[in-house]
């Protein structure tokens, strides 16, 4: 079995063809080969460029608002008994979710590449909203591809995108959700790659997009590592980092800096979207053992039928409603560094209710999946165990769904 090498970030531990073990690669049309290669060369150059790093850090600090806070959820801990429950409140970041990191970095890269246009996909609308914010800030024209079903259920984020001057391109094909938005965005890039930069909204897609996104969201664990040391004086003996997993950008970013700790000391728990309680459909390819397939340019575990057609997913959370998952997570599952499980729509909703009842925190439906797992396991654990949940999105965007489901 492959192992994680120390001293090198996991995003760089792929082979020359772009594979992490069996996952990843570049399954792309010939037309995109050159733009993808150019982007890879530019990114490798920029990440070594002190001026670029300074610029990125400057915007993360002054515009995104870094660091986001790390707090103990005292009331929830007391109510549940058992392990301590903490939260990394990434939803404090400008725009209300972790998607701002990737959007900022992509916009900066687009500027360096001399591109005037930027396009991106979105499910929950956060990736789209953040890209529209960053595009506005850095003077780029922006188009966002979004499934019609998601446009309807995530209206607050759509309003924000429009306000920022971005054009929302509705996608009517297939299930009209994130998977179709990503396909349509890639098709648009095939036709416009000479003038336009593409931002893939998560740690998915051809190799370089997985890397750029993982590199950007790793800001979360960089901050957390410092915050934990400050809070506890050292890294506690038993930590559990719980994060929801859709494409996998927030969870990867939440875990990256802790990769080389033993899983006994720092356990990674990824929570996928299990879908409605009584439905066969889900968005949890890792939990339910989906087969490896190729989706959006990369080999990954993906929900599909025996013929290789991608299956429709179902989840209350638009941000997790994706049939595939990052090659990085497939790799982490295979080498058993991370453990993956799923929470149903109903479990996420009751977790949301419990968290908001006891704490001054408003996690969106995506991190509510992670809270569901925390709530499930905390009572069974000792009080020297530190559970940290990445509260990576704010529920403001979910107000319509929450009102409908919870009244």
């Amino acid at each position, binding site marked *: 079995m492959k192992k994680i090498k120390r001293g090198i970030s996991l995003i760089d531990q792929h082979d020359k*063809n772009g594979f992490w073990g069996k996952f990843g*690669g*570049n*399954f*792309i*049309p*010939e*037309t*995109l*080969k*050159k*733009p993808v290669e150019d982007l890879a060369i530019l990114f490798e150059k920029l990440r070594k460029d002190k001026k670029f790093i300074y610029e990125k850090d400057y915007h993360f600090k002054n515009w995104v608002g870094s660091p986001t806070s790390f707090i103990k959820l005292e009331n929830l801990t007391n109510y549940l008994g058992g392990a301590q429950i903490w939260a990394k409140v990434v939803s404090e970041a400008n725009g209300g979710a972790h998607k701002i990191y990737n959007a900022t970095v992509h916009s900066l890269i687009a500027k360096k590449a001399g591109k005037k246009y930027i396009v991106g996909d979105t499910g929950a609308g956060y990736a789209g909203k953040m890209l529209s914010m960053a595009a506005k800030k850095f003077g780029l024209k922006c188009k966002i591809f979004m499934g019609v079903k998601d446009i309807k259920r995530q209206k607050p984020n759509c309003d924000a995108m429009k306000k920022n001057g971005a054009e929302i391109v509705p996608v009517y*094909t*297939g299930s009209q959700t994130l*998977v*179709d938005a990503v*396909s349509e965005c*890639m*098709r648009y890039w*095939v*036709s*416009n*790659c*000479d003038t336009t930069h593409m931002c893939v909204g998560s740690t998915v897609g051809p190799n370089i997009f997985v890397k750029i996104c993982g590199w950007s969201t790793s800001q979360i664990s960089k901050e957390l590592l410092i915050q934990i040391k400050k809070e506890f004086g050292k890294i506690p003996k038993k930590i559990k980092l719980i994060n929801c997993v859709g494409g996998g950008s927030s969870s990867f970013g939440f875990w990256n800096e802790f990769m080389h700790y033993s899983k006994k000391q720092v356990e990674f728990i990824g929570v996928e979207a299990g879908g409605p309680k009584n439905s066969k459909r889900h968005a949890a390819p890792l939990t339910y053992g989906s*087969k*490896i*397939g*190729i*989706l*959006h*340019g990369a*080999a990954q575990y993906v929900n*599909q039928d*025996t*013929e*290789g*057609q*991608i299956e429709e997913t179902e989840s209350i959370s638009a941000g997790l409603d994706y049939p595939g998952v990052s090659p990085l997570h497939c790799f982490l599952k295979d080498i058993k560094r991370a453990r993956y499980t799923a929470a149903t729509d109903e479990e996420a909703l009751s977790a949301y209710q419990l968290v908001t009842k006891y704490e001054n925190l408003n996690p969106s439906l995506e991190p509510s999946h992670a809270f569901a797992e925390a709530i499930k396991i905390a009572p069974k654990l000792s009080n020297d165990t530190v559970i940290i949940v990445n509260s990576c999105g704010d529920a403001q965007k979910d107000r319509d769904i929450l009102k409908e489901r919870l009244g």
Partner: protein
Amino acid sequence: MTISPISLAFKKSRNENRPALLTYTVAGDNTKKKSLEILNSISNHADICEIGFPHNTPIADGGQIQTASYRAIKNGIKIKDVFQIIKKFKNNKNTKPIILMGYFNIIYQYGQNRFLEKCKKSGVDGLIVVDLPWPDNMNFAKKCKKNSVSFVQLLSPTTSKLRMKKIIKSSHDMIYYISMLSTTGGKLKVSPKKILKSYHKIKKIVKNKNLVIGFGITSKNISFFKSADGCVVGSEICSKISKSIKNKQNPVTNVGNMVKNLREKLL
């Protein structure tokens, strides 16, 4: 070594002093039966028939082919049906070569060796895999060759000269040049003159292989491309099928007439 049916088709059209006409339709569009009838009617006028494997997350296809693919999938087309259509077609008219076109996940799930065996048995002459570019396709291309299936490499306006030379070197008897930055069926946004200029530059490197042009070619512009080895028309045909269904007309006759007209424009 025997000459492949694909090379033979090009040789024939070259002797007639015209480009080969290649058509593209989606297997199972709009039904299994109709799709075979359409293919039969096309093959009266086309030199090589490309058949698309319908896939539900096609990242390089435009609206017309997506619509055709969804229609076929909705009507329940399965992999075995696609091969059956080809087999039946080959039993009828074994002179026209068939090139199967699709996305790699279908082959990946089916198993590469099993897929190629099935290709051989059904009479598939060539394969185009849209999302398996060089050099990732080298192993698979070799397997194709072993099974006497021609693996068609693609070149695009973004392909660098160095890369182009390497791709050409590992290509078989046919190479596909993508006319412009576009998904299939996009409006021709570059003048035919410019496309041909790039085409002939490449042709200088691939003198002894067949280089076809595709993407954006329709009845309106096909006559500009007479100096090419071959022209591919796909989306226009798929869209003709869509229109025929919508207007309750027979797609078989309509498509047959369209391909006949395309052929005449190449003379």
